[in-house]
C-alpha cells in the first residue's frame, strides 16, 4: 500500500518545502494587500494633522492623540449620523428577518395555489438590478411623501429575495413530522411557527440578520437619492461628504472613517462563521 501511495507523492522533500513556502508567501502577500487600508487607517487616526502630512509617512503615531475623534463630533453632527445609520439598519434588519422567515415557512412547508408561480417570480426578480428600479421607486416614494424621511430609507428594505430564499432552503430541512406532531397536539399554524420553526431556524436567522445589517449599514445609492437634508444623512453618505468638505484634515477623515467601519468589522469578527454559512446556503443552491 505504501508503494502505491508513493506514486502520488513523487515530489522530493525539497519540492514540498519550497511549495509550502511559496503558498505562505502568496497568502501573506495577499493578506497584506487586503488588510493594508485598515492596517494603515487605525494608527493614522491617532496622528496629529502635522504628522499625517509628513513625507515619508510614519507608521506609529509619534504623539498619539484622541483629539481627532473628539473634533469629528465637534465639527459635524457625527452622533446624529451614527444614530441614523443604526435606525436605518436595525429596523429593516428586524423587519426583514421576520418577513423572510415567515415567507420561507410559507414557501417551504405548505402546498397552495400559486406557490411556485409566486416563488419563481421572486427568485427571477433577484436579477433585476436595483439601480434599474431607482428612478420609478423614487417617484413612488415621492408620491407617498416619503422623500427626505427616515421612513423612505427604511421602507425599501423590509424584505429581500435572498433572505426569503435562504430561509426557505433552511426550513425545508426541518422534518414535516415535527410539524404534524404539533398539529395533532392541536397547535395552530402560528404557534408551530413561533414555537417550533423559529427556534430551529436560529442559525439561519442569525445569518440573515447579519447579512441584512451589514448591507444596510453600507447602503449608499438609495440614501443618496432619498435624503436631502443633512440631519438625515447616514454614515455612508456623511463620510464622503465630510471628506470632501474637510479634505485638508486627513486626520479627522481617518478618525471618522474608522468610527464608521468599526461596528461592522467587530460584528463580523465575532460572527464570521454565520457569514460563511449564509454564503454557502444562498450561493450554492442556486
Amino acid at each position, binding site marked *: 500500500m505504501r508503494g502505491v*501511495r508513493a*506514486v*502520488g*507523492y513523487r*515530489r522530493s522533500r525539497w519540492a514540498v518545502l519550497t511549495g509550502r513556502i511559496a503558498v*505562505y508567501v502568496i*497568502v501573506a502577500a*495577499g493578506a497584506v494587500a*487586503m488588510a493594508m*487600508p485598515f492596517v*494603515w487607517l487605525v494608527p493614522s487616526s491617532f496622528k496629529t494633522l502635522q504628522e499625517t502630512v509628513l513625507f*515619508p*509617512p510614519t507608521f506609529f503615531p509619534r504623539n498619539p492623540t484622541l483629539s481627532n475623534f473628539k473634533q469629528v463630533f465637534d465639527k459635524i453632527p457625527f452622533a446624529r449620523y451614527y444614530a441614523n445609520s443604526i435606525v436605518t439598519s436595525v429596523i429593516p434588519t428586524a423587519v*426583514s428577518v*421576520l*418577513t*423572510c422567515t*415567515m*415567507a420561507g415557512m*410559507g414557501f417551504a412547508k*405548505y402546498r*397552495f395555489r400559486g406557490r411556485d408561480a409566486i416563488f419563481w417570480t*421572486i427568485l427571477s*426578480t433577484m*436579477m*433585476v*438590478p436595483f*439601480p*434599474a*428600479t*431607482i*428612478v*420609478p*421607486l*423614487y417617484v*413612488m416614494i415621492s408620491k407617498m411623501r416619503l422623500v427626505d424621511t427616515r421612513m423612505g430609507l427604511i421602507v425599501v428594505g*423590509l*424584505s429581500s*429575495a435572498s433572505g*426569503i430564499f435562504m430561509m426557505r432552503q433552511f426550513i425545508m430541512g426541518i422534518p414535516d413530522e415535527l410539524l404534524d406532531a404539533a398539529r395533532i397536539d392541536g397547535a*395552530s*399554524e*402560528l404557534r408551530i*411557527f413561533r414555537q417550533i420553526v423559529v427556534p430551529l431556524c436560529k442559525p439561519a436567522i442569525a445569518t440573515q440578520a447579519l447579512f441584512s445589517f*451589514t448591507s444596510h449599514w*453600507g447602503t*449608499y445609492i438609495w440614501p443618496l437619492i432619498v435624503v436631502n437634508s443633512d440631519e438625515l444623512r447616514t454614515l*455612508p453618505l456623511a*463620510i*464622503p461628504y465630510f*471628506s470632501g468638505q474637510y479634505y485638508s484634515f486627513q486626520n479627522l477623515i*481617518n478618525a471618522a*472613517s474608522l468610527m464608521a*467601519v468599526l461596528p461592522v*468589522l467587530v460584528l*463580523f469578527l465575532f460572527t464570521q462563521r454565520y457569514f*460563511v454559512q449564509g*454564503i454557502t446556503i444562498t450561493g*450554492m443552491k*442556486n
Partner: protein
Amino acid sequence: MVSVETREYRAYRLQRNAAPYMFILPGTVFYLMVTIIPMVIGLWMSFHNWTIIRPTKPWVGIANYQKVLASPVFWTAMKNTLVYTAGVVPFQMALALLAAVLLNTEIRCRTFFRLLYYLPVVTPLSIAAVIWTWIYNPNLGLLNWFLRSIGFQGRDWLGDPKIAMFSVMIVAIWSGLGYRMVIFLAALQGIPETYYEAAMIDGAGRFDLFRFITMPLLKPATLYVLITSVIGSFQVFGLVNVLTGGGPLDATNVLVMWIHRRAFGDYQFGEAAATSFILFALILAVTAIQWQVLGREVTYE
C-alpha cells in the same frame, strides 16, 4: 363515515388554509413593492416625457430611447462600464479562486487569513472609497510613497484620465474578492476527498488533480460567481461616485451614474427610466449568453 364539521374544526381548517398566504404575504408584498411595481411604472415612464417640473406627461413613444442612444456621453458610459466589467470580473475571479485553493490547504492561521480576505466585503463601499482616496492621494498617499521609495514615479491615480479607471478597478477587485473566495471555498470543501485519493492511486500529479478533478467540479460555483459578478459590475456606482465622481473628463462615468445624473441632476426621468431598461436588457442578454455558452455543460451530479 360521519363528517365532523364542528365549528372548531371549521375554524381550524380555515386557519390552516389561510396560514400559508398569511405567512408569505408581508415578505412578498414588501419585496414586489420595490421590484415588480417600480419596473412596471418605469416601463410606463420610459415611453413618456416625464419630468418633475411639468405636470403633464405626454406619450412620446420610443423618443426617450432614441435620445439616450444618440447621446455620446451614454456611449462613453457604456464603454466604461464594459471596460470596468472586463477588467474587474476575470481578475477578481482568478484571484478569488487562487486564494480559495491556497486557503483550503493545510496551512497555519487559515481562519485568520480567510477573515482578512473577507474584511473588505463587510466594509461599507463608500467609506472604503474614502480610505482609498487617501491611499491614492498623489502627495500624501501611501501608494505613491511606496512607489517612490522603491524608485518609481508617483502618479495621480484618480486625477489622470488615462489611469483613473484602472485605479477604480483595483478597489473594486479588492472589495469583492473575499465574497467570491468564500463561494469557491465552500465548493472546494464539497468535493469528496476520495476522488483525489483515487486519482493519486492511479498516479495523478498535483496539476492533474487540479485540472481533472477540481476544475470540472468547481464549474457550477464558477458559473454562479461569473454571472453574479457580471450583473454586479454592470451596476457599479457608489465606488465610482466617491472615488472620482465619474471624472476626470467622464473617464470613469458609468451607466448607473448616467441614470442617476439624468434623473436627479437634469430631472429627465423618462430618459433615465429608458436607460434603466437598456441596462436591464443588457444584463439579461449577457446573462443569457453566459448560460447558453457555459451553462450547458454544468452538471449538478
